[in-house]
């Protein structure tokens, strides 16, 4: 069994986030191991999304946000000081967000064509030369399993795609920037069962090459995808589970309710860094 501290991809220490002095995260400590999909689970309002958004500092875009603590990413390109974001290994916010891809709960396509949805962040935010643009867009769409569906309709408005297609387009948009980490905020919550399954398969495939951290609302989905589970309650990570094999939804349900640990799960409570 991996020791989560030995090869972590994400290290969170004493992270507290509040909006207009209403605390959402309280002193969170978490080490997410590299490899596979890490899933944050918890009741609604437990702070999953805020924790996820702390990784690419998207909370900073929301009014009244106040963050304390440290967040650090360890990627194949080296350490990344996410927060407080000072010191020699710090990067600018746009640079950070290019290196940390994110997909939202509801598909957030830009009001533009399918092609420019992927190409615009590449060209504008990442400064990709025009000559490479077409290849990289195609590459990203292929990786997001969308290419053969939109091949002849690249100039069509992205808003005319179906929900599942839009979500995969968002995934392609994130992948095109070649991120070091991929963040997903309940990526299948607004999709029907079929489209959700397709995105799940895609995520499992991607996780082989790229660390994925996601928030999930479904217990069965969490068990299908997770190689690492972090259970949240009232702004804290109350447990982490490094091996989900053999767990049932009932086990997970009990974990969410904060009851005693099931025998095969490794837990961590109030770990101090």
């Amino acid at each position: 069994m991996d020791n989560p501290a030995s090869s972590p991809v994400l290290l969170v220490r004493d992270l507290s986030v509040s909006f207009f002095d209403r605390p959402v995260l309280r002193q969170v400590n978490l080490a997410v191991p590299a490899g596979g999909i890490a899933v944050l689970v918890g009741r609604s309002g437990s702070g999953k999304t805020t924790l996820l958004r702390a990784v690419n500092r998207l909370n900073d875009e929301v009014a009244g946000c106040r963050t304390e603590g440290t967040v650090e990413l360890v990627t194949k390109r080296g350490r990344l000081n996410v927060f407080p974001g000072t010191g020699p290994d710090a990067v600018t916010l746009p640079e950070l967000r290019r290196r940390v891809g994110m997909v939202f709960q509801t598909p957030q396509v830009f009001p533009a064509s399918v092609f420019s949805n992927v190409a615009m962040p590449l060209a504008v935010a990442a400064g990709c030369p025009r000559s490479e643009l077409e290849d990289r867009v195609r590459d990203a769409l292929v990786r997001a399993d969308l290419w053969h569906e939109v091949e002849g309709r690249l100039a069509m408005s992205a808003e005319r795609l179906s929900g599942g297609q839009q979500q995969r387009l968002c995934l392609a948009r994130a992948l095109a920037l070649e991120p070091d980490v991929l963040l997903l905020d309940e990526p299948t919550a607004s999709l029907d069962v079929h489209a959700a399954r397709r995105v799940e398969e895609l995520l499992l495939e991607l996780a082989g090459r790229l660390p994925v951290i996601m928030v999930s609302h479904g217990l069965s989905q969490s068990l299908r995808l997770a190689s690492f589970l972090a259970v949240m309650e009232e702004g804290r990570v109350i447990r982490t589970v490094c091996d989900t094999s053999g767990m049932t939804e009932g086990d997970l349900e009990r974990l969410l309710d904060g009851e005693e640990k099931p025998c095969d799960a490794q837990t961590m409570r109030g770990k101090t860094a």
Partner: protein
Amino acid sequence: MRRFSFLVFRALCTLCAVLVPCLVLVLMGYLFRRGLPELGLDLLFGRADPLDAVLGRVPVWDGLWPACVGTFWLVVLTVLLAVFPGVGCGIYLSELASPRQKRILGAAVDMLAGMPSIVMGLFGFMLILLLRRTVLPDANTGLLLAAGCLALLVLPVLTASAREAMAAVPDSLRLAAAACGFSRAQALFHLFLPAAARGILGGVVLAVGRAAEDTAVILFTGVVANAGLPSGLLGKFEALSFDIYYISSQYQDQQELLRGFGAATLLLVISCLLLAAARVLERGFRKKWQTKA
């Protein structure tokens, strides 16, 4: 007693609901009844040949053509001058300003919005007086000056519409843009501005309407009754709105009076069409974001 006052109030409401539309419809109906039959090529060109007049080969003395051309150039110049600062101000207020800047700049724009248009005209007039006394002894009022003053007049319209259009860009799009690694400026220019373009354009159309109808500003800044086609940026010019005023006070014969009715009808129709266009643009803009949310 309370019951009685309420009954009076309700009766008054119903009365106004009938009275006001009637009043406006009577005024407009009267105008249309006398003005609509006048609309036609004769109204524009009088006795001159239309083609020659359009090409500027013959002057038009008894038609509205020079006034239409004057108003057209006036509006074009005004929009050219006002769009950049006006829309820029709106974007700044909505996206970049600190709360303190918002308060100050917002107050200044509000104040400008309520300013009587004749004060803008006076401003242009003063500018010319100042130029005459200092560097340019033969400076005179003209098309460019009028457009500059009109630009000040329509600036608040543009600022308000641009500000509202930018504020209507949904938060989800802002988050998605940030998550893609766009810097604030990149997201603004590549995503939010195109997204808000329709709303901003609606404001431009409204501004065109304001510029076309205003009379008080140009009264001070170079409009004359019989200038013919404007000779250049600094030349005197005619304008539709001024012609209406001039004819109402100085008309010589029945034919000129009828031309006034024609001009008033024409200006009214143009204004209403511009308003309708602005509404269509604005409504399409809202619908787009509401179906998305």
